[in-house]
């Protein structure tokens, strides 16, 4: 991860009280922007990334030299057209793409924080990113959107700042992290911690990182982003560059080879401790509980217009959990649209070229933006 020093950073000097009780201040928030903020400052969209994402939603990620993770959705002429909208995305705190996280130096010890970094929550992430509005002098965002953990941040953002976004698009997410998802995250964390190189989180001093543990965590997680049907269609029982079984534990099957590859490239761009911290934040997310079991209360003060999207083959954040958000909003008469998009690509659908999904966002945003401007005239 060279060039990491070159990413744009906002230093947040105001103290931020975290849910765990600690207060942090003078910490960096790495961000990137796309398009131009117009004179009226009414075209800004804040995108939130998921577990393994970063601030580079579009174009080429300068750190990895790969395409931005939301390239299908965001960019010039895309569904979210950056010739029209100004898109901001920040690396979450706890992350490893330039924002304040466990690989930062702890001033008390002059070593990396490691597991001495405070446990952060979705609420903390959102509160940190709120400073971007002040930085860009944006009174009200046009939209906040995100998928998976990004969707959780959308819900938390509207709840914390009920009058700070005209529209909100939570995608393939939940208001309350399920036992199944906590279990899957725990599997990933235990795999990292079981790697000897992890050294209770202080691996950077040893210059040996827990790559194997992190790769296995990623492999396990990657399966959960796909669907059985998608796997069957893409891989089936196809063999990897061989005509017959090898009677060994090599990657005989294409799916094995694919997962090993996904694991190996992930460790080049992601920090194992960040993986622990961010998955923990997801597990702790329970907006319903924050409002004593009544999710509607989270949105009571807001006039934000919602559109919620789920995918048919997403078993990680199934339609039923997304629908609970729709029900919470409808039951207090809020403005909400909802669509379950047909896709065999599982939870990952929100990152892929799924035309109905892309069109849904495009039409919702453009119509909302036009209506807003009609009102002003």
């Amino acid at each position, binding site marked *: 991860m060279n060039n990491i020093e070159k990413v744009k950073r906002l230093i947040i000097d105001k103290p931020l009280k975290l849910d765990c009780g600690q207060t942090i201040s003078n910490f960096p928030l790495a961000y990137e922007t796309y398009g131009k903020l117009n004179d009226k400052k009414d075209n800004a969209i804040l995108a939130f990334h998921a577990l393994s994402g970063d601030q580079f939603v579009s174009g080429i990620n300068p750190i990895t030299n790969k395409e931005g993770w939301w390239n299908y959705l965001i960019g010039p002429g895309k569904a979210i057209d950056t010739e029209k909208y100004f898109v901001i995305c920040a690396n979450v705190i706890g992350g490893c793409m330039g924002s304040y996280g466990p690989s930062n130096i702890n001033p008390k010890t002059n070593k990396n924080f490691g597991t001495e970094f405070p446990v952060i929550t979705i609420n903390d992430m959102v509160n940190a990113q709120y400073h971007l509005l002040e930085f860009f002098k944006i009174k009200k965002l046009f939209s906040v959107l995100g998928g998976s953990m990004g969707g959780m941040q959308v819900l938390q953002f509207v709840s914390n700042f009920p009058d700070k976004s005209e529209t909100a698009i939570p995608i393939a997410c939940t208001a309350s992290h399920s036992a199944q998802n906590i279990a899957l995250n725990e599997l990933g964390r235990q795999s990292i911690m079981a790697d000897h190189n992890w050294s209770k989180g202080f691996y950077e001093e040893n210059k040996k990182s827990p790559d194997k543990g992190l790769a296995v965590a990623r492999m396990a997680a990657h399966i959960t982003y796909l669907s059985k049907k998608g796997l069957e269609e893409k891989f089936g029982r196809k063999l990897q560059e061989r005509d017959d079984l090898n009677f060994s534990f090599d990657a005989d099957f294409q799916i094995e080879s694919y997962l090993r590859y996904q694991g190996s490239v992930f460790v080049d761009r992601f920090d194992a401790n960040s993986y622990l911290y961010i998955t923990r934040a997801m597990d702790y997310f329970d907006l319903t509980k924050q409002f004593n079991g009544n999710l509607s209360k989270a949105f009571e003060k807001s006039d934000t*217009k919602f559109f919620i999207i789920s995918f048919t083959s997403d078993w990680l954040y199934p339609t039923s959990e997304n*629908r609970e958000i*729709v*029900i919470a909003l*409808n*039951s*207090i*008469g809020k*403005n*909400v*649209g*909802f*669509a*379950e998009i*047909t896709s065999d690509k599982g939870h990952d659908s929100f990152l892929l070229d799924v035309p*109905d999904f892309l*069109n*849904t966002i495009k*039409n*919702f945003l*453009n*119509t909302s933006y*036009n*209506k807003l401007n009609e009102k002003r005239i």
Partner: protein
Amino acid sequence: MKKEFNIIAKLVEKNSKVLDVGCGDGELMKYINENITNDIRGLEISKSNVQKCIERGLTVIEGDAEKDLKQFPKSSFDYVILGQTLQAFLNPENVITELLRVGKKAIVTIPNFGYWKVRLHLLFKGTMPITKNLPNEWYNTPNLHMCTIKDFVNYCNKKNIKINSQNLSYKNLFSQLGIFLIEK
């Protein structure tokens, strides 16, 4: 545009809050949205229709009226519209009750089984009637609970639902479609 849309739209007050249940491809919603009120949204079960509504820039919630009306609070809409789908529900009575709970008023349209052509079809041909409003065969029709205008009015009277029922026998014979504004 279907000609009944104009009649339905006229029943809706300007700038009122409207829910179109079973909004289909959003044609009626779009008309009302452009001419009567922009506070309108739809509930639609078919994915392809949901996409058509979204393409038209309409607010739509994908869902099933029989299950999903219950999430809306009492009197949360000025008007709830149900266009020609009442007869296709498993339990139309529940749906009517829900329409009148969620909406202060409801606009319901039904294909009239008492229309003279329908009556003659059954009388002379002895087979299930097929008309413009009832285009399917008995074995593939989505319509489970066909009724006549008179049936619907009788039902409303029995349940103390306010309904306009002038010239009932005449209308029951000569209308292909019944359009009703009802309220509790």
